[in-house]
């Protein structure tokens, strides 16, 4: 039976960037509303089984509980069996459970940070990331209803994975020879000593960055790459940037509403599987916009670009493929089961 996982991070969209910039406010009730619409989208394309990450707010149970009586869902909705910690580990562990029970697609609600944690545990299961975070390069602003429908057609095999499920890159952080963490979009070396409130907003703390992608329309450090040398999602290259002496200067939106000049000493493209040495220790490495990794003075750290990031559902392509039948047996199936219902 086609199964879709839902990982809705209750903590996304609440960090200090609402004070230091103008970060989006996403209260958990709005996440409940989005999940409700996702569930209705999934139900419309006849997905019958959902596995969800439990959380301290109860986003998915509240979404189900608040449905109107005529929208009652005829699907099995199961909580993933994890011990809640109330931290980002919950997203990781929920993804591991979903990977082990072989769900067909995982819908995430969060920002880049949430998807980074899910990517660490989801293996090759396709993700459909719905943006509810702050710096959102990896997830898309997409209406929950169509996100649910798109996940459903992928999960049910109504469309082929190729080309509606796209591969992505990732960055692996090594410390003293061991891989210790990953980023999906950017790994940024900061001259900080503390993880503290996690976010990045002070450009004078930037030392170095490695990005897997970066376009001018991005927000966060990926936008810096976008203004220097844009790197697309599927380009087989990344960019290594060193900040400092202003050989180059770009005006970049490094956080919502925070558009600042960034001084760059040098930058260069890197190939897939190339490793970049972290040049200054001690330091903190921020992964996808959040300070995460402490590197001590005597540690040796590297950042490697790879092309084995999570697979991501292209919502528009998935629904278009389902309708026009240009890939797989889409149109016939979808029309029979959904569009042309009597």
């Amino acid at each position: 039976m086609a199964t879709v996982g839902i990982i809705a991070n209750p903590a996304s969209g609440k960090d200090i960037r609402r004070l230091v910039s103008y970060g989006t406010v996403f209260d958990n009730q709005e996440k409940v509303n989005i999940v409700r619409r996702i569930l209705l989208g999934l139900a419309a394309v006849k997905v019958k089984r959902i596995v969800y990450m439990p959380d301290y707010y109860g986003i998915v149970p509240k979404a189900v509980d608040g449905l109107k009586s005529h929208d009652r869902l005829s699907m099995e909705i199961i909580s993933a069996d994890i011990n809640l910690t109330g931290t980002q580990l919950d997203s990781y562990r929920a993804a591991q459970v979903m990977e082990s029970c072989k769900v067909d697609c995982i819908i995430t609600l969060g920002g880049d940070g949430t998807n980074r944690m899910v990517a660490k545990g989801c293996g090759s299961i396709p993700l459909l990331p719905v943006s509810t975070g702050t710096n959102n390069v990896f997830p898309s602003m997409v209406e929950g209803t169509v996100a649910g429908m798109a996940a459903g057609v992928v999960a049910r095999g109504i469309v082929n994975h190729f080309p509606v499920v796209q591969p992505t890159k990732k960055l692996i952080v090594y410390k003293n020879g061991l891989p210790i963490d990953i980023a999906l979009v950017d790994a940024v070396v900061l001259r900080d000593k503390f993880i503290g409130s996690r976010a990045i907003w002070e450009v004078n703390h930037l030392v170095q960055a490695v990005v897997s992608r970066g376009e001018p329309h991005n927000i966060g450090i990926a936008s810096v790459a976008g203004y220097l040398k844009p790197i697309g999602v599927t380009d087989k290259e990344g960019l290594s940037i060193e900040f400092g002496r202003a050989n180059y200067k770009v005006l970049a939106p490094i956080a919502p509403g925070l558009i600042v000049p960034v001084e760059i000493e040098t930058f260069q493209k890197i190939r897939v599987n190339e490793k970049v040495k972290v040049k200054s220790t001690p330091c903190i490495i921020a992964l996808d916009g959040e300070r995460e990794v402490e590197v001590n003075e005597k540690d040796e750290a590297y950042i490697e670009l790879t092309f084995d990031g999570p697979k991501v559902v292209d919502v528009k392509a998935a629904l278009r493929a389902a309708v026009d039948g240009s890939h797989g047996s889409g149109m016939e199936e979808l029309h029979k089961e959904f569009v042309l219902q009597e």
Partner: protein
Amino acid sequence: MEITKAELLSFYETMVTIRTFEEKAAELFAAGKLPGFVHLYIGEEAVATGVCANLTDKDYITSTHRGHGHLIAKGGRIDLMMAELFGKATGYCKGKGGSMHIADVNLGILGANGIVGAGQPIAAGAAFACKYKKTDAVAVCFFGDGASNRGTFHESLNMASIFKLPVIFVCENNMYGISNYQKNHMNVSDISDRAAAYGIPGVTVDGNDVVAVYEAAAEAVDRARKGDGPSLIECKTWRHRGHFEGDPCIYKDPKEQEAWLKKDPVLSLEKKLTELKFATVVELEEIKAAVKEKIDSAVLFAQNSPDPDPDDVLTDVYAS
């Protein structure tokens, strides 16, 4: 945000002072030497320390029934605090207030408060005064998760927002309103969500990480001083002990307690200080010993102080 070695060591000393004061209060209460009730701040030290490190004597705070930590972090004298706990005439309230009413107006400490949520309008009022008098002082209101359900919270945030007052509402969310788990008494999980209803910024930080609290408070205080209005900071934290001393804590999940004890804010900071080589273990022990000496001295001062004179029972009760 740059935080120097001196600043971090100062945070540590403040947190150790709060911890040691509270441990001594627990010991004295258990021995029957304190006449009133005490609600201890053990486990929440990073919040008061991180916030108050951004304040000066001209700034105001309002506190709660669990107020010792706020008072110490704002510069309150521990000898006068201890004397007040003992109910002695030398105490901050001349022995008539006890743990829950300590104030020091000269330091901007507008008082601990036994009424849940009562500090919020007082802080908003102090902030109004700062704005009216065109000073750049700010007011900080400490309160708990339960207090965010009170009408005073909503009225104060509304008024602070509409008047763009220089006030920072700091919610110490220790997950329990007395013995009532948060999810049983409110339908939001992050109290910072409530800021949106009043059009002000709301953020959630790790309340056991003094640097995280300091950074968020620094931004909120700066914003308030510049006339940009109020903010709400939710600090997720945990009280290690019961609501009050003597509370058997049967409502707490032992596994959750165990998990939070691993995130002890004082021990976490000790680890960070030694990792950064800002201090050796021996130097940290020396700080602890010096703090213990100060607390012991405060206890001695309190024990040797006179009881209030019965003839003074009505003194300071009414304004004259």
